[in-house]
């Protein structure tokens, strides 16, 4: 333990807090994963592995009840917190209470959706009971967003008291390989090895500096070119920039694929400002995007290979699926879209009666194919926008580009017109993914009735406002199905329906990209969990 000395980690977005229940941001959750741990997590290939638990409970081993309503976890024996006290099931129960406190505003609340109770059967056994049948009961306490916090430490921080517990939020006591020695919000965290860590030989590093700030290219430069840092996270950079940086020979770029997909969402409702309150609501279908031919043409005109080459290179793959991973769920039915076919697109539009006007923009019944295309501010996305705009112009579609600050676009502020939920545009582009390895809730979000609207304060999740009975029927079936192969089948069908109706136009299956110095060993990039999930195994070569 501690033989490898010091390691420098650079997150260009700096963590502001180390309590993942108060801030669900990736940077916070990942930083916290050095300290606090869940009962089970996903490994680099997306398999669930027991972590603080003895094993993964299943229906087979009796951990999950047959009615799919309870799951019982067994904790490893002899676990201690970094302060030396014993880790018990009380802590797990407390974690549940902490996050579900009605006044708490817990960022990971959805992990505990449908949970009715969490009980400590004995010191090492916890039973979680759901209100409905849960074919996939691995929400609570699984994955890096749902780690266990110490009851003793957080006892007085429930509900409205939570924000006041600065010490606790900045220096949580955990079971992980490291403990915080100093925390400076949005700047830097210093860690040292946890003396009470369960594996006496780990971690290899005695101390960690976790620095934040700057931007991706500076982070890449610090690891790949100057060698000042050992590990840099989330290098969303153009492939050639990464390529040029790694030529310096100080480090290497690593990537791993999870379920993230960069896609274009098509607005099925009319975003015209003239509609006032009813703008982008299901009251008015979109004047021309309701025509599947138009949507299809838009998708056909895109060359996903070039997009990938420009924006992602080895860290992305062109895709035609909205659920490209885990591999078992990935459909192959739509792969035709990988080939750009402008002629075909033109032909489809011609046949559908969209004729080119004098300025080259197609029209029908006085309606011009003129789109507003919005996304968040990000160099790669803007390159994509420019390219796609040009391709669409080749099929007679006029495009206006707009990019919005990410904090506004993804902010969900009901007062702002620029959120992706309000979707006051014709198409928008962003990346989304689902949590863990089961896509059910993901599909569920595109259910009819879940679209954002003024009635629900624009809080819906069915962003495209697509509404279809057959889709909803398949979804209902999925919710009741426990059998994996049937689940896969249904999932693929749901995926294919979205794609073949051209409601969502997937572009790139994105991997997470990071870089580490050549002297850092043991890095196994994980797209399903925290990137730092195995930091206990890292060592200096």
């Amino acid at each position, binding site marked *: 333990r501690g033989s490898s000395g010091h390691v420098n980690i*650079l997150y260009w977005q*700096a963590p*502001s*807090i180390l309590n993942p229940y*108060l*801030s*669900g*941001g*990736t940077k916070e959750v990942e930083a916290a994963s050095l300290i606090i741990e869940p009962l089970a997590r996903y490994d680099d290939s997306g398999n669930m592995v027991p972590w603080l638990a003895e094993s993964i409970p299943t229906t087979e081993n009796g951990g999950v009840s047959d009615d799919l309503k309870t799951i019982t976890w067994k904790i490893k024996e002899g676990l201690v917190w970094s302060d030396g006290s014993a880790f018990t099931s009380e802590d797990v129960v407390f974690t549940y209470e902490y996050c579900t406190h009605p*006044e*708490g*505003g*817990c*960022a990971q609340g*959805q992990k505990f959706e449908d949970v009715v109770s969490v009980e400590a059967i004995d010191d090492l056994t916890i039973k979680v009971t759901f209100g409905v049948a849960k074919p996939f009961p691995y929400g609570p306490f699984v994955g890096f967003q749902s780690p266990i916090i110490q009851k003793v430490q957080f006892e007085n921080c429930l509900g*409205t008291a*939570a*924000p*006041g517990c*600065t010490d606790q*939020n*900045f220096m949580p006591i955990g079971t992980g390989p490291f403990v915080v020695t100093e925390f*400076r*919000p*949005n*700047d*830097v965290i*210093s860690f040292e090895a946890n003396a009470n860590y369960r594996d006496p030989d780990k971690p290899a590093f005695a101390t960690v500096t976790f*620095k*934040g*700030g*700057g*931007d991706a290219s*500076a982070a890449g*430069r*610090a690891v790949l*070119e*100057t060698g*000042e*840092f050992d590990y840099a996270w989330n290098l969303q950079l153009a492939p050639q920039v990464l390529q040029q940086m790694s030529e*310096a020979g100080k480090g290497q770029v690593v990537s791993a694929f999870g379920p993230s997909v960069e896609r274009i969402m098509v607005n099925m409702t009319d975003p015209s400002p003239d509609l006032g309150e009813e703008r982008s609501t299901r009251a008015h279908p979109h004047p021309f995007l309701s025509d599947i031919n138009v949507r299809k043409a838009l998708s056909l005109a895109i060359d996903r290979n070039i997009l990938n080459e420009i924006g992602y290179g080895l860290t992305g793959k062109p895709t035609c699926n909205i659920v490209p991973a885990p591999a078992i769920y990935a459909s192959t039915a739509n792969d035709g879209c990988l080939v750009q076919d402008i002629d075909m697109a033109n032909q489809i539009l011609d046949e559908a009666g969209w004729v080119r006007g004098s300025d080259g923009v197609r029209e029908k019944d006085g309606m011009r194919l003129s789109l507003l295309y919005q996304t968040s501010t990000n160099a790669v996305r803007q390159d994509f926008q420019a390219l796609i705009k040009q391709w669409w112009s080749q099929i007679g579609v006029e495009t206006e580009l707009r990019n919005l*600050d*990410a*904090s*506004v676009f*993804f*902010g*969900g*502020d009901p007062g*702002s017109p620029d959120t992706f939920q309000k979707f006051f545009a014709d198409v928008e582009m*962003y990346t*989304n*993914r*689902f*949590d863990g390895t089961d896509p059910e809730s993901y599909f569920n*979000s595109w259910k009819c009735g879940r679209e*954002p609207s003024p009635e629900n*304060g624009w*809080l*819906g999740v069915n962003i495209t406002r697509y509404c279809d009975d057959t889709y909803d029927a398949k979804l209902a079936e999925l919710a009741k199905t426990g059998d994996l192969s049937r689940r896969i089948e249904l999932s693929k069908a749901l995926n294919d329906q979205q794609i073949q109706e051209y409601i969502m136009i997937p572009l790139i299956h994105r991997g997470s990209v990071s870089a580490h110095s050549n002297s850092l060993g043991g890095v196994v990039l994980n797209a399903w969990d925290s990137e730092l999930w195995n930091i206990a195994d890292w060592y200096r070569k």
Partner: protein
Amino acid sequence: MFNYTIRRTLLAIPTLFFISLALFLLLDLAPGDPTAQLPLTIPPEVREKIRLALGLGEPFHIRFLLWLEQFFINEPLHLLTELTGVDFSGDRQRVISWQSRSPVMDIVVQRLPQTLWVVGMSYVMGTIIALPIGIISAYRQYSWFDQIGTFVSMVGFSIPTFFTGVLLIVIFSVHLGWFPSIYDTTHVVTDWGSLIVQIKQMIMPTMVLALYNAAQISRFMRASMLDNLNQDYVRTARAKGLRENVVLLVHVLRNSMIPVVTVIAIGVPTVFGGAIITEQVFKVNGLGQLLITAIQANDIPMVQTLTFIFAVLIVLFNLLADILYGILDPRIRYE
């Protein structure tokens, strides 16, 4: 002079009140949401709950009054508590950052050292460089020194720091490896060696900013010197047989410094907030970076506090500039 000072100070109070009201209103109208940083997988209902937990639901005037109380009464009391160890503050509610759920002022205090070290130093450096340049350019007006000085200051003024910064990093960190490209805020100076490290990591950000500051200050200095060089009293001083550098550095400089000192004083607040881009480029996580991350994360209490602190500093240094003016210029002092 005393009256004048008091009068200016009293005037500052309503100004500050209106500034805080304006800032509050502005930020209230601004889009963005503290839940923006949450991943998309977090459902909107949860976001809404978090938002309510942050106290976003209250009406405007209540939040404003609450904030005024927190900022003007509770925070000073807490400060007092910390300084004296006697508990003045009780459990008064402090201004809490939405991002880190910790008192905003604590973080601000934490950021002060690097802000002062780097940005403050750059201002000092800029001034130190600028003054002699301004003096010489004025004394030798239209000489090659003056021409080059003008050219360099214009270039220094016109190139964005996000570009100069990256350029310096590429040259000095990547290719030459002389200086680190990332500022270590945890570094403590304890001995000679660590001082060298500190200086090394300060050089590049300091220089980038110093160039920018020096460009402006030297222009002012030059103009002011030129104004004074033509005054009658300069001729008197020469007629007394004083040496040229005495004439220049005692008689002319003192007079020329009067407007320049106020310009410098008024520029000080930018030290605290104006270096956003440079701080970003060199990862000097100072107050500027704090503001920008707070804006990006829509951490409204933090943004409010920081912008208001900057506003207070601006008003304060304007006041200070007025007072300095009086101290330097006897004509005002004896008003």
